[in-house]
């Protein structure tokens, strides 16, 4: 009887110890992960010499049929290196963020993870790199192909491998424009307003937005900010952090907000409608021919190019023009892949990424074929789906007339305050432009 008692107590004790060990794992793993983060040339034969290994990867998104990350990529990796098994987990965005946090804190993060440039989102590469979770990728050969990697470089270390760009612009219905006698894309802000007025006079809703999903407000505001704030002061965001500039500075964000509000005040975007419809409903409304334009990103091109009730009308894409006509574009590096600094297979992952992003491999070709990225180099980059829409933006970027999306440089949460307050402004709640800039500044300082 006594022996049974002892055994049962031991079992209970062991269980408790196991659970407590599970809870307390974060601290020790974190220190080992930062030790593992080292730079220097990597072993380009790492995979060949590794024997049978399993590399894990976690990305965000929703898996589709013949999904690239979860199906195509593991198969192609297996073809190239039969000794490597790539296990990919794809989670919806919110799940991804929470899972990533818990896996990082428990020291069991997958070898390769999807990260965003700068400070954008919960998987921002700057935030993760600051915590020591990302391995430096300075020695990847891919880096030589990219012209500007500052958005994924933290403390002189490149931490995210990305080949694509994401663009913000205005999708428009060319047939509707032609019907109203508009033959050219607007080149200045005034021309843009004139075109809106012409469309409205002809009985068309000029622009549809899904402001119920408040993040869409960023699409227009960031483009205007590129033209009116960053073009004049490219270091504006850095100076926000040092306190040399403020959102409340006259002629900066107040101007941006006023210009965007002009579209609402004139009824070119109908706030009484837009605040009640979501982003996907706005896209549907555009392809159904209920509005002439919608402001959206390149990432939504497949949905915006689909046929709706209005059939297969011709579509165009232009950046919101600057007041002066010297237009810049809100085009930035898109999300990419980082290697967890605590991974056992850092060199193997680097070899894999270098092969993937070499601009010619099977994986590269399959990656481009997804149509989800707009590549700036390599074979077939001009074959990207809808590339003709995006080419002018890429040209502008190559001329150096592109800036990152503002939220990438701000601490996460600043943009939600901007959206919330701008929503109040267009919803007639008595909020002024000065209130918004003041709130943004307060929030920015609070989050820093």
């Amino acid at each position, binding site marked *: 009887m006594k022996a049974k008692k002892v055994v049962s107590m031991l079992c209970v004790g062991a269980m408790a110890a196991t659970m407590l060990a599970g*809870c307390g794992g974060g601290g020790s793993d974190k220190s080992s992960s930062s030790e593992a983060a080292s730079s220097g040339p990597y072993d380009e034969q790492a995979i060949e010499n590794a024997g049978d290994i399993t590399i894990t990867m976690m990305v965000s998104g929703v898996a589709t049929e013949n999904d690239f990350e979860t199906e195509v990529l593991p198969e192609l990796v297996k073809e190239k290196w039969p000794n490597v098994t790539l296990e990919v987990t794809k989670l919806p965005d919110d799940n991804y963020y929470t899972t990533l946090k818990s896996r*990082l804190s428990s020291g069991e993060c997958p070898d390769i993870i999807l990260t965003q440039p700068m400070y954008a989102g*919960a998987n921002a590469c700057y935030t993760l790199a600051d915590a020591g979770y990302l391995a430096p990728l300075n020695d990847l050969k891919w880096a030589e192909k990219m012209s500007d990697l500052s958005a994924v470089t933290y403390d002189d270390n490149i931490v995210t491998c990305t080949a694509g760009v994401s663009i913000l612009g205005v999708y428009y219905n060319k047939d509707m424009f032609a019907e109203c006698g508009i033959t050219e894309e607007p080149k200045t802000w005034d021309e843009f307003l004139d075109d809106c007025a012409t469309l409205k006079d002809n009985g068309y809703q000029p622009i549809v937005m899904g402001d119920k999903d408040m993040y869409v407000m960023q699409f227009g505001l960031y483009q205007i900010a590129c033209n009116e704030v960053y073009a004049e002061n490219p270091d504006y965001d850095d100076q926000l952090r040092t306190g040399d500039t403020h959102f409340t500075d006259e002629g900066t964000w107040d101007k941006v907000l006023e210009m965007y509000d002009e579209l609402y005040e004139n009824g070119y975007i109908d*706030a009484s409608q837009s605040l009640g*419809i979501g982003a996907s409903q706005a896209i549907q409304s555009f392809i159904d021919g209920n509005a002439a334009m919608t402001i959206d990103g390149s990432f939504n091109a497949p949905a915006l190019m689909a046929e709706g009730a209005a059939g297969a009308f011709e579509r165009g894409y232009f950046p919101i023009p600057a007041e002066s006509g010297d237009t810049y574009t809100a085009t930035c590096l898109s999300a990419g892949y980082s290697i967890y600094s605590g991974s056992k297979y850092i060199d193997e992952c680097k070899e894999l990424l270098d092969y993937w992003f070499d601009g010619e491999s099977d994986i590269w070709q399959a990656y481009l074929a997804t149509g989800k990225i707009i590549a700036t180099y390599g074979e077939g980059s001009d074959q990207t789906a809808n590339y003709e829409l995006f080419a002018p933006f890429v040209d502008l970027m190559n001329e150096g007339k592109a800036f990152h999306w503002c939220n990438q440089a701000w601490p996460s949460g600043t943009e939600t305050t901007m959206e919330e307050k701008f*929503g109040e402004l267009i*919803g007639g709640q008595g909020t002024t432009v000065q209130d918004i800039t003041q709130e943004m500044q307060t929030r920015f300082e609070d*989050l820093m």
Partner: protein
Amino acid sequence: MEKKRKKKKGNISLVFTNRMYVFLIPALLFFLILWIYPLLQLFYYSITDFNGINYDFDYVGFENFSRIFENGSMVNAIKNTLIYAVVVVVLSNLIGLGIAIALNTRIHFKGIFRTCAYFPALFSAIVVGFIWSYVYMPTNGMIAGLLDMFGMDGSKFNPLGSFTVALFAIAIVEVWKGFGTTMIIYLAGLQTVDESLLEAGRIDGCNEWQLTRFVKLPLISSTITINVILNVIAGLKAFDYSFIMTNGGPGSSTRTLMFQIYQMAFTDQQMGRASAFSVVSFFVIIVITVFMLFFMNKREVEL
């Protein structure tokens, strides 16, 4: 011998002997590790500037608490949550009780009607939220379409885009989804009412209203308590429809306590601030629950 006897006297129950307490340890450990420990951590993180990722955080004292009151987010969230809870409690119970009384009478197709009333409760909140987003959609939505059909201007119907109406609009969705469950509990309560008491009432000359008010309602007072408490809980933890249908907007008009905590923790990455928010919410909810329990117990006695 004496000692042994004394020991035996200590064992009050022959069925639940002292050694049985050992078997409580695993459950107790789970409870401590998965509930009490995280709860204590919540209090701990509430005085830090932890961002959820970087464990190299600082202690900021009560700054998190003062900030959530200074910027008005706490007051706004409490106000929205209370309005939401009141709408849900009142409408769910009135509709649930009304339909339960109607479906407790002798009518044809009673089973079908009961099934139909319970049907919305079977869908997940996400599905219901998406469907109702389209029902409320201006111009092309279901209600806007119906208004157009009756010659009214459906394009002006935009409840989710209105700062004053959006909160009520999402609360109605919660009521639509939940009244079936409330109704089922009321039905169960009503079926426990002894027929002989109703008979006696009728002999005394009571009409249907008097029977309901003075016989049925007092007899189902404990059912009313359960339903009100369940609806208060559903109202206080309101998150789903703010998240799915309005994303807290327009402005901050549909930000509830739970939504605000979620946004702070996972969007703004202010885990410390969100913990402070949770601690305050914890006490607010305790106060409301204790008040409700006292109030409802008193009402039960009065009825």
